[in-house]
């Protein structure tokens, strides 16, 4: 029999704010973090729109922390510190504490910076911290050191589903008895001319340069691609028993996860949404929920022409008539696409929507694509009724990874 897992701490640094509270307020207000990058190194690129974090890590961390960590590690550390302080765990046996923090590309910026140093100044000037900075397990490792986790430190990577997969992984660590507390989520900090050029080469990015703030508009009929963002979102999961014994405040209950894969294309979503539907159904089963229990869906929807409609269709097919009482939002309208950090930010937003009984609107979206047959919240927040409820949080990644997390009210 597996143990119940609850959420006791939240932390984030995003294009909307340097912590969870400011991010949540900005989301409810429909604000946008997308802008035109001003640094000259981006000037010649075909796309110059991105969503950097609102509060730069250099304003928070010490200089020696900045110099020996990749940006993805810096962001993960900042978000993890907030989540850990929020959970306020006074004492825990290190052997019962784990970390699962994932990222899409990890220390790509450090890798490229050190390559430039190698070329310009030679091998003797390559930083001895290069390997710890570029390794994808770097963010998880740094947070593991911060909190003293000995139960296991993991990095389950699945591109844009990574943040969600990490939360599911952390929950399984607790359910199977490997840990009582796990700090989990995702991070990404790779806004760089190369990564922008790479996504632009796939024609995946919005080119709405005349109105960058409104470029990311999931489900909108005029959407033209996603906006690259950065940031980190981290949750503290605990076994319900451990949380209640110490009188922890509990945000919500982790219901379960559904995992599937598209087996279709290295980057494009499968148009019939078969993998998505499989993941949703598996999540419902794992969480012991029926479609009737679902009152909200937090969509992955990145603002790409193909992906958003395929997801909406899959949601309607699985939930059927019950989709009518499950309004949908998409965080990426406001924040852009946090890549490895997106799935865990979506989870945090789902948890807060249930806690506050308010669904944030999809920022920037004005006219829904006619292929969208689900109730998308636009314009202003939507109230949720009182009573028991559950929400689903969808995250899909290049490579065809489908992760759906389920969260329940306390």
């Amino acid at each position, binding site marked *: 029999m597996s143990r119940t897992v609850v959420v006791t701490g939240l932390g984030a640094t995003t294009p909307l704010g340097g912590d969870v509270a400011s991010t949540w307020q900005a989301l409810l207000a429909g604000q946008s973090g997308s802008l035109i990058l001003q640094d000259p190194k981006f000037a010649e690129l075909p796309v110059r729109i991105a969503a950097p974090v609102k509060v730069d890590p250099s304003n928070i961390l010490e200089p*020696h922390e900045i110099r*020996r960590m990749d940006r993805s590690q810096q962001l993960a550390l900042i978000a993890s510190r907030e989540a850990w302080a929020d959970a306020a765990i006074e004492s825990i046996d290190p052997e019962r504490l784990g970390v699962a923090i994932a990222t899409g590309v990890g220390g790509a910026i450090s890798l490229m910076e050190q390559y430039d140093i190698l070329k310009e100044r030679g091998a003797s*000037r390559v*930083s*001895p*911290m290069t390997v*710890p900075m570029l390794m994808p397990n770097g963010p998880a490792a740094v947070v593991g050191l911060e909190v003293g986790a000995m139960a296991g430190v993991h990095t389950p990577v699945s591109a844009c589903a990574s943040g969600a997969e990490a939360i599911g992984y952390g929950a399984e660590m607790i359910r199977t008895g490997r840990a009582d507390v796990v700090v989990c989520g995702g991070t990404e900090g790779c806004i760089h001319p190369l990564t922008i050029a790479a996504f632009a080469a796939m024609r995946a990015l919005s080119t709405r340069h005349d109105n960058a703030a409104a470029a990311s508009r999931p489900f909108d009929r005029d959407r033209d691609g996603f906006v690259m963002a950065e940031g980190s979102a981290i949750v503290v999961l605990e076994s319900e028993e451990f949380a209640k014994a110490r009188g922890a405040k509990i945000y919500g209950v982790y219901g379960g996860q559904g995992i599937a894969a598209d087996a279709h294309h290295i980057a494009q979503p499968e148009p019939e949404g078969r993998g998505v539907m499989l993941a949703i159904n598996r999540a419902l089963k794992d969480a012991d929920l029926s479609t009737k229990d679902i009152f909200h869906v937090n969509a992955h929807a990145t603002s790409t022409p193909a992906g958003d409609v395929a997801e909406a269709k899959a949601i309607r097919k699985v939930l059927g008539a019950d989709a009518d009482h499950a309004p949908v939002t998409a965080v990426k309208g406001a924040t852009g696409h946090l890549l490895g950090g997106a799935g865990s930010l979506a989870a945090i937003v789902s948890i807060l929507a249930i806690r506050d009984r308010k669904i944030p609107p999809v920022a920037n979206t004005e006219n829904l694509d006619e292929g969208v047959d689900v109730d998308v919240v636009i314009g202003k927040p939507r109230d949720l009724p009182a009573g028991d409820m559950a929400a689903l949080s969808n995250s899909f990644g290049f490579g065809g990874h489908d992760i759906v997390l389920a969260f329940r009210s306390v």
Partner: protein
Amino acid sequence: MSHEDILAGLAAIVNEVAGIPAETVQMEKSFVDDLDVDSLSMVEVVMACEDKFGVTIPDTEVKNLNTVADAVNYIAANK
């Protein structure tokens, strides 16, 4: 450049690399035992010293630089 100047420069480097308060970087202190500078940080300190003071500090020498005084004296002798 006086020994005092070298010490001040080295203290600033140690502070930047490892976050250790510059005023605790004193001549008799051991990098590893007193200042808690790990081996990777030591490599960074050496690199920064080479850049700042225009010296070369080969790996064979680095292992002899146990205290701050060892480093200051080496830099003074090889600038």
